[in-house]
């Protein structure tokens, strides 16, 4: 789901923008080392492939059909860091030249689809993969990647004060689940077909336990987003959530808006201020977990 | 120095062990035009890719009196103009002018000088209009001419063309022959197009299983191996 401009509140936009800038810069550095000298043509062609692939329909049922989203397949074939770069490039092209997703909102869309989605896909491929289990791993990669991206997007919209009534929320989550299953199925089918067309295109899997930390991080992020979504549809849910996380005192400080206009328009009520702080807190927590995980695994392997 | 390509005992195998070139001996002289025949998979393109160092094999290979090795590759790649089979793979700059100017820019020329050379090269292939447009809307013949201009802009000594007539209709084929006939560079042309080879190249070589098994007048080679639809081969290449 590509979020357009003008929907996200400044704190959400700001935090996600910063996280994306840092994440993409890191991925670009890693990708420059990962693939060989032909990486720009390879990555560029993979990106162009994703666009072209959207024209091939996958029949679902009763005349409905879907198409490949791509994050997981990119992670499987190129590796996680290059896939992040390619997805970012795709999203930027979509925002600039297809008006699909906003330009300011790129921070959020990149976070959801190019980082969380790709990371979820890459993680699932590594974690579930192994001899004889590649199809399953590809299915898991596709589903988790699509689900993570969609749930995060919806959570960010809710955190920005976009009203989503409970029934619509349920419907949205239902659609996300179906989309995720379809993406999983497509990714698995294409990965299997690739094995026979040109074996060696799929990355190797180790299924190593080191990945458990990043898996844990992803899971916590997703649970947080899901919990947030559910809480946001209940009248007092977010207040309870904010109190439970222990950041109720923070919202005044964090959300001291530079533009009074913004506060009136975006924060229609007290509970939304807490919501903004809540999401902020969750993202900060997630970032800390990730950094800790990296530090720990580096320390362990030293 | 009249011998600008000198290969002796050139061998190449993939990392999997599959041998593609099994000892190629070949000489190309200044200004010569040579057609390269052979079945698909016989090693023609692989051999050509050695001449500008894209593939590295074993044996003796000198191009324009330089060994085909890293310190000399930049210079060799300017002296060898390689026209790939699909111009789509070769035109990667946003506009026609920029693509033709890419070679000169890489050679260190200023933007103005590079564009000047590019315009001259484009004019020599008959492309003078719409130079600030993207190349994707051109016909295959026009794309090929732009790609050729990009190569000519750095004033090479050898032109290598890999199956240049594959996507061309008869008028475009004729135009290409006429254009190539005006160019003084030595030419190596991989082609299955016998009439094209006849019109352009007095000499031909025939590749078979990674070696050159025949080297002589084009007409003779065509007749011997039946490379023209009208006549059956006098001797047939070894079965695959």
């Amino acid at each position, binding site marked *: 789901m590509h979020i*357009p*401009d*003008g*929907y996200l509140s400044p704190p959400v*936009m700001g935090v996600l923008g910063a996280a994306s800038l840092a994440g*993409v810069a890191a991925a*670009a550095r890693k990708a420059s080392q990962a693939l060989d*000298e*032909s990486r*720009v*043509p*390879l990555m*560029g*062609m*993979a*990106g*162009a*492939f994703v666009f*072209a*692939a959207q*024209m*091939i*329909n996958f*029949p679902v049922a009763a005349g409905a059909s879907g*198409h*490949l989203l791509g994050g997981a397949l990119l992670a499987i074939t190129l590796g996680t860091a290059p896939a992040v*770069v390619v997805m970012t*490039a795709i999203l*930027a*092209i979509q925002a*600039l*030249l297809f*008006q*699909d997703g*906003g*330009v*300011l909102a790129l921070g959020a869309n990149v976070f959801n689809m190019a980082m969380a989605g790709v990371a979820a896909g890459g993680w699932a491929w590594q974690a579930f993969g192994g001899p004889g289990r590649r199809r399953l791993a590809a299915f898991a990669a596709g589903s988790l990647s699509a689900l993570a991206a969609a749930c995060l997007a919806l959570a960010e919209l809710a955190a920005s004060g976009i*009203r989503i*009534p409970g029934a619509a929320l349920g419907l949205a989550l239902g659609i996300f689940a179906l989309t995720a299953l379809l993406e999983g199925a497509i990714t698995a089918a*294409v990965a*299997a*077909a690739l094995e026979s*067309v040109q074996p060696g*295109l799929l990355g190797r899997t180790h299924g190593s336990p080191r990945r458990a930390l990043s898996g844990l991080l992803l899971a916590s992020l997703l649970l947080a987003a899901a919990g947030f979504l559910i809480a946001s549809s209940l009248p007092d849910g977010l207040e309870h959530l904010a109190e439970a996380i222990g950041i109720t005192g923070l919202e005044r400080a964090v959300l001291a808006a530079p533009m009074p*206009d*913004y506060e*009136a328009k975006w924060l229609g009520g007290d509970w939304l201020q807490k919501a903004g702080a809540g999401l902020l807190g969750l993202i900060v927590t997630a970032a800390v977990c990730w950094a800790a995980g990296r530090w720990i695994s580096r320390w362990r392997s030293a | 120095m009249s011998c600008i390509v000198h290969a002796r005992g050139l061998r190449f195998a993939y990392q999997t062990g599959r041998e593609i070139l099994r000892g190629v001996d070949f000489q190309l002289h200044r200004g010569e035009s040579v057609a390269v025949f052979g079945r698909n998979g016989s090693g023609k393109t692989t051999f050509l890719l050695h001449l500008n160092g*894209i593939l590295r094999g074993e044996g003796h290979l000198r191009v324009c009196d330089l060994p085909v090795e890293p310190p000399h590759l930049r210079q060799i*790649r300017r002296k*060898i103009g390689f026209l*790939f089979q699909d111009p789509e793979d*070769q035109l*990667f700059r*946003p506009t026609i002018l920029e693509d033709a100017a890419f070679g000169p820019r*890489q*050679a260190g020329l200023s933007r103005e000088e590079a564009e000047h050379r590019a315009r001259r090269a484009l004019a020599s292939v008959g492309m003078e209009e719409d130079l*600030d*447009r993207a190349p994707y809307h051109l016909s295959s013949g026009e794309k090929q001419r732009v790609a050729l201009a990009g*190569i000519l802009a*750095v004033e090479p000594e050898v032109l290598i063309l890999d199956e240049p007539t594959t996507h061309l209709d008869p008028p475009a084929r004729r135009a290409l022959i006429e254009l190539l006939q005006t160019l003084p560079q030595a030419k190596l042309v991989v082609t299955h197009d016998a009439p094209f080879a006849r019109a352009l190249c007095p000499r031909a070589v025939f590749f078979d299983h990674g070696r050159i098994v025949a080297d002589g007048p084009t007409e003779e080679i065509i007749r011997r191996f039946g490379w023209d639809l009208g006549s059956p081969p006098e001797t047939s290449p070894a079965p695959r």
Partner: protein
Amino acid sequence: MAERIGGRHFAFDEWSRGGSWLHRLDARWKLAAALAALLLTALRGEAWMAAPLPLLLALAARLPAHALAWRAAAVLPFAAVFAGMSWLAGDSTRAAALLWRPYVSALWVSLLMAATPLEEVLAAAARFGAPRLVLEVMHFIWRYLGVLSEQAWRMRTAAAARGADRSFEVSAASLAVLFAASYQRALRVHRAQLARNGGGLR
């Protein structure tokens, strides 16, 4: 529903090569101005009043304002869903904002891309510190998405002609073939770059 990537998607290529005063402005100014316009649109409630501004600028730059207005409308279906939910909840000001904010933003982006060739926008972004690798990949994607889309379209037509286009497995096989072909093409492009002494795009 996936649509064919055809001529209309490359309209920006044509429009951006005009010669008006706007086209000749340095891309860094245009990019910075567009970002500022987007920020104001997102944050100020009165920004809707500036909605005609991108269209007026388009006219002044001899660009087809109606075409830009139509392109920006691509955001409306998605926006209408969320606007509808707000409106049904009784908040009509927010509902309106959820429609005009993305639309006006899309107008500004369309104007930027219609007045500035993509490679200049990418070069400006590089000057502002965007990661080079991402920009190079973007350039490549734009260059080859038409080529690969044509290939995908031909595969789709060929499959349909054989009566096989309603099969999941056939589509998966088509994608695998397309991916492998794209991979091979990437290798060929890399070789063509090497042959002209280019190791990357700059």
